[in-house]
């Protein structure tokens, strides 16, 4: 069934009785050509691109809970390509290009909204660091504009330009940056993958990885053993546990990142804005809620919930930067579990087990990476070769020192 405005009209006229299931609920088969562990954004897009780009259709996605129940459904929905280190740059640039065609690709409106992202800076030094970033983006063929204080004021006149603790010197505008409707991304990939024959198997937890002679042969699950020639681990948030089933100890520490949404408000913030002197970034959803977040709670956690110190820090940052949001009320806060890596960049690589592949370490930048992560992971699983834009996301780079540390904060996992 193809979605369209016309279809919405005709279904509306006939009581919406004709809408078909967005995906099937198949029983697991005994064997697949490839299994993707993890039905989040990255897992679903991996399966989709295995089917679409590599014509592998005997593929299953195994999800222990419900599709899209992890970080793809609990983030601040920001989509951007404003990295400056080679390795990250081309990957996120590729991802943004995929985003730009995603509705047509999936026949599902993921509401990708290129409303512009503004990184504010608050000193000459920060301005120069953002200039370095912006110049890297333009060099690559992406877009960036350096705004001075008046340029920012023109776009965001309601920021506190007078009293804020760290004055606003300007901002780096990334016009193609923006947001997307997070759940829709998971559902869009799920539906599109299902239509290409991928089996999406929910409530199916992997409990073991079967390896024979250094080669993966299948997985054990709560719904029985399933054989497979290739297995991809795409379970950011639980990577250490699943990788441990194959005897691996990963360079990953799990941390909680909180996010917040306010009650609905009429349009008041038209961009994505981030504060350079505290951990605070914000945008307004199409429904009207202000969606914002800050930094990690900073302690290792699998609890998917946070504590007040970071909550208060985020709110205080909001109040010093944009006190006009003071009377908006926070409706809900939640936490996601982040795979934090020692340089803040992800891993898409083969493992020491033949046929077993790893996609993890997304820190808190995973949402915008969903299309390219799936694209590159599918490429790796199908061809056994890294995709060119993901070639630096190697598992061994911490040992060799070929790091991708955008923040410059070093090997302490939680500082990125």
């Amino acid at each position: 069934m193809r979605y369209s405005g016309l279809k919405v009209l005709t279904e509306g006229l006939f009581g919406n009785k004709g809408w078909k299931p967005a995906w099937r609920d198949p029983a697991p088969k005994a064997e697949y050509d490839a299994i993707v562990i993890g039905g989040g954004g990255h897992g679903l897009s991996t399966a989709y691109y295995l089917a679409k780009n590599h014509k592998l259709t005997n593929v299953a996605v195994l999800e222990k809970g419900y599709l899209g129940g992890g970080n793809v459904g609990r983030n601040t929905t920001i989509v951007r390509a404003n990295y400056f280190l080679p390795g990250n740059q081309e990957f996120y640039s590729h991802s943004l290009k995929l985003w730009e065609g995603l509705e047509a690709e999936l026949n599902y409106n993921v509401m990708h909204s290129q409303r512009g992202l503004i990184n504010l800076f608050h000193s000459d030094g920060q301005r120069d660091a953002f200039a370095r970033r912006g110049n890297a983006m333009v060099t690559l063929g992406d877009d960036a504009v350096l705004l001075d204080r008046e340029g920012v004021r023109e776009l965001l006149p309601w920021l506190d330009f007078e009293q804020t603790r760290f004055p606003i010197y300007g901002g780096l505008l990334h016009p193609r940056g923006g947001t997307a409707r997070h759940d829709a991304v998971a559902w869009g990939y799920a539906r599109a993958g299902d239509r290409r024959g991928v089996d999406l198997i929910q409530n199916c937890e992997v409990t073991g990885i079967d390896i024979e002679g250094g080669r993966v042969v299948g997985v054990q699950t709560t719904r029985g053993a399933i054989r497979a020639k290739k297995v991809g681990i795409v379970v950011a948030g639980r990577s250490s546990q699943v990788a441990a089933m194959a005897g691996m100890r990963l360079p990953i520490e799990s941390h909680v990142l909180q996010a917040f949404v306010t009650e609905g408000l009429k349009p008041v913030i038209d961009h994505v804005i981030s504060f350079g002197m505290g951990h605070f970034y914000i945008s307004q959803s199409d429904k009207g809620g202000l969606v914002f977040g800050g930094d990690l709670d900073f302690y290792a956690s699998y609890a998917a919930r946070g504590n007040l110190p970071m909550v208060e820090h985020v709110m205080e940052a909001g109040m010093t930067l944009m006190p006009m949001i003071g009377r908006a009320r926070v409706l809900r806060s939640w936490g996601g579990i982040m795979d934090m890596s020692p340089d803040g960049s992800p891993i898409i690589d083969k493992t020491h087990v033949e046929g077993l592949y790893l996609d993890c370490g997304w820190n808190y930048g995973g949402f915008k990476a969903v299309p390219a992560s799936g694209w590159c992971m599918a490429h790796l699983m199908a061809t056994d070769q890294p995709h060119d834009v993901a070639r630096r996301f190697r598992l061994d780079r911490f040992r060799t020192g070929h790091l991708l540390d955008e923040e410059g904060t070093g090997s302490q996992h939680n500082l990125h």
Partner: protein
Amino acid sequence: MRLTCPLCGDRDRREFHYYGSDAYLDRPAEGAAPAAWDDYLHNRDNPAGLTKDLWYHEQGCAQWLVVTRNTVTHEVSAVELVAGRAGA
């Protein structure tokens, strides 16, 4: 979240700075193999359950602490001084 500093007593989490796993206490000896350093700096058990990690009472007594904690429930079962631990 609260931690009971062995010196200062029961305090709010905001007084503490978090570093990471207590594996950081086992610094490889001079001349150790690169793999040992890789393990020391990067690779983690990262358990979903009981863990020991390092916290610094930055807004209090400036002591580093080993905290035994559950990463799923956030229950804290022990807090010890790094400087006071056996063999330190």
